[in-house]
């Protein structure tokens, strides 16, 4: 690795960091990018003996500004729609060579929910032994914040603006993890960038399973969601604590585990931090109705997945991120 750092001591210190990091500094992600953090956490948990296929999207663009790369692992850029297919091919090739190297395919919500959906479905159906990770920032951020199948109800994007006729996106967020789990795959899970140890646990779990696995990581986009970059974790945490983004695990299509919510926060706490929901706080009857609608969606999630935790639990929405002197929580 070459760089032109003016601080040789820091360059040496960077080399000596007590963790494997597949994604290095110098990438061009925006300030406070949730996806850049989520991707690095996945590479940390997966370790060095992994090859990556990466769909077109923010992650691909900001990590590979020609002629540089931020990746410290074998990495291949596919088209927008086919990272699952490219990954499946890599897996088949490695299998025929008798190698144990694992394969992870990655895509954003556009490349997973919409454009790359049939390639993903095919890979799952053929039973390739690989992990697919979806970094969900709930719109086409790279091309200018257009709505995707993942954009939540009532969020404003450039193609679902709020105005006289609509209060942001009319439709609902696609329930991708249920659709994926319906392929009867051994493991499909959701996670949030606000809970790094939960991400690591799920990546290791998925890679320990023989067969297709799927991990859906909620990753805030400060630019597209309209919040300060310093609040990315705060926003992601509130998405979980309100019940709008349920953190769950499904094995062979059946619910196998959830991160309970100790005491659900009202959805307005989450929405008020983001300008994409700003129109919901106007003095407007439709806005009040949409706020109630989003609260009902969160309540529905809490009910459906039984997210209500009664007692304090060190694996619930409050206990999962407890810190201790000396950093022991991140094991």
């Amino acid at each position, binding site marked *: *690795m*070459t*760089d*032109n*750092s*003016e*601080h040789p001591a*820091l360059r040496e*210190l*960077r080399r000596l*960091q*007590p963790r494997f*990091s597949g*994604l*290095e*500094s*110098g*990438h*061009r*992600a925006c*300030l*406070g*990018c*949730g996806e*850049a*953090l989520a991707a*690095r*956490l996945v590479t940390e948990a997966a370790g060095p003996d992994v090859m990556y296929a990466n769909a077109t999207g923010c992650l691909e663009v900001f*990590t590979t*500004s*020609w*002629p*540089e*790369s*931020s990746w*410290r692992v074998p990495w291949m850029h596919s088209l927008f729609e086919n990272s699952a297919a490219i990954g499946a091919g890599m897996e088949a090739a490695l299998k025929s060579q008798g190698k144990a190297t694992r394969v992870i395919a990655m895509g954003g919500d556009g490349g997973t929910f919409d454009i790359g959906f049939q390639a993903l479905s095919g890979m799952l159906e053929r039973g390739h032994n690989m992990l697919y990770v979806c970094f969900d920032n709930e719109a086409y951020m790279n091309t200018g914040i257009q709505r995707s199948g993942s954009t939540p109800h009532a969020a404003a994007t450039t193609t679902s603006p709020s105005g006289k006729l609509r209060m942001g996106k009319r439709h609902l967020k696609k329930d991708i993890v249920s659709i994926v789990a319906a392929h009867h795959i051994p493991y499909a899970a959701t996670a949030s960038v606000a809970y*790094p140890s939960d991400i690591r646990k799920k990546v290791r779990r998925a890679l320990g399973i023989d067969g297709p696995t799927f991990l859906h990581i909620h990753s805030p986009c*400060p630019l597209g969601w309209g919040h*300060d*970059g*310093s*609040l*990315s*974790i*705060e926003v992601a*945490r509130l998405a979980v604590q309100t019940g709008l983004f349920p953190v769950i695990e499904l094995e062979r299509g059946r619910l196998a585990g959830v991160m309970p919510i100790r005491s659900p926060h009202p959805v307005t706490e989450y929405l008020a931090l983001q300008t994409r929901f700003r129109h919901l706080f106007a003095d407007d009857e439709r806005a009040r109705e949409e706020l109630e609608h989003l609260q009902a969606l969160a309540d529905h999630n809490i009910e459906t997945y039984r997210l209500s935790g009664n007692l*304090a639990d*060190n694996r619930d929405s*409050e*206990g999962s*991120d*407890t*810190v*201790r*002197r*000396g*950093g022991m*929580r*991140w094991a």
Partner: protein
Amino acid sequence: MGLKLTRGAFAHPGSSLRYHTGSWRMQRPTHQHRAAPCHTACPAGEDAQAWLALVEDERFREAWENLVRVNPLPAITGRVCHHPCEHACNRGQYDEPIAIHHVERWLGDRALQEGWDYPAPVTAPHQETVAVVGAGPAGCSAAWHLRQQGYTVHLYETRPLAGGLLRSALPPYRLPRDVLDGELERLLAMGIEFRSGQQLGRDFSLAELHEEYPAVMIAPGTQRNRHWDIDGATPHDLHVGLSLLQRWIDVGTIPEWNSVAIVGGGNSAIDLARVIRHTSGAEVHVITHQSLPRDGATPVDVMPAIAREIEQALEEGVIIHQHRGVQRLVLRGEQVVGLELVHRKEMLDSTNGKRHVSFEGTESLLHVEQVIPTIGQEVDPAGMEVLLDHAAFLHADAQGHIAGHPGIYTGGDARGDRGSVSAAIGDGRRAALAIAHDLQHLEGDANGVEIVPIRFDQLNINYFEPRRAAVAPVVPVTERTAEIEVTGTLHRNEAIAEGQRCLSCGNCMSCDNCWTLCPDVAVLKTRDAEPGYVFDYDYCKGCGLCAHECPTAYIVMENEP
């Protein structure tokens, strides 16, 4: 760019490390150790956050050394202090404050059991000798800190033993004698020349001290009872509360009554009430124009006695009449047979001066055999007339300088604006630092600048879990006597658990949050520096995520120059 393309039109492998995203930055994160509220609230100046962190790490001796570098008497203050640190503790706004005084006491006791020695002086010895007059908490603290600063100390005391009010007015159920003796003997053994039986104004004069020593610390405490009467009337056999208490502690005797009323709301009033309850079982009334400690009361309106002592006194059957004053003594001849009480409060007048207001129509009669004023003391002017200038207390600046008397310093109860053991210990330290500063002709302020503590809303509380505070065992009411210590001590594991509960306000707790959560891998871990993290400003974009997610508000964003 000077890059060569190969024929296949792919680039030479290049890491993005060559691109410094730090150039985008408008703000930069910095590490800033800021004061925890317990630190700024402590009258003695202890940094409880620092030593609690060491307790959590089970580095007990280092924790104790950190503590005694500020307060040399932790086993004593852990028992008798009113712990304003715990009222200031940010954790009190989350669940319950850290039981700081219990851990302080546990550390102090452990040091006595293990025979730990004080840490070595911080500076090389100086030639000068400094005199300290009065071996109470302020004088002992000053003497100890002067030794730490490398000075020879002559400590003058009227009584045969050191301790001042700690020895003469604190009953053993609050402060066992072996603890008091253990800490004071260890302190005096630090090369302090203790000259007992020497009284200022009788055995030596201020002028002689001035001549012999370049600096003199005057910490005489308050030795004279304040005058008390009701419209000019006093009982013919007037007993003053503190004198009764001191005689009981020294000799073990106290007059027996069936019922008494103690006037006053301070610690001595409560102590005397409990001693009388324990020794004779008499009916004991405490009359105070202030209120019992309760939520929402203004601090000036609350009795100055320590809340837990008041609570224990009530458990033991002491009757406290709050917001009451004595309007008239009911006398048969010169003998007290009762008091006329009236509802009374302290209020501010139009010039913000305090005045006592009695409310007409609220009078009531209380039959008691004796009334005992316990309303506080003032400085005995003998030998110090020139310093007092007819005032009841000595007036000094924050460092203890008495205006117009260079080379003379004071602190503790003699100041009149203090009134706690820990404040006296803090005064001793500040005066010692000021003396060292002045004798060495140093520039600037001896005690640094005022610091603003971290507020609760600056912490990121998401990263902590609720956990109850440790509770020390208390002797059941029926088994209490005036000799046995009422409040017990924590277990070792409970002390460690309190260290774990500490939110570490304003100081790094090495939780790895910044290292884990930086989207730009611009926080690096190191073993070679405190704290264990450095910012790599070549790549930090200044998003502020680390500062927002820092649980302890140790990371602060600053504008780029």
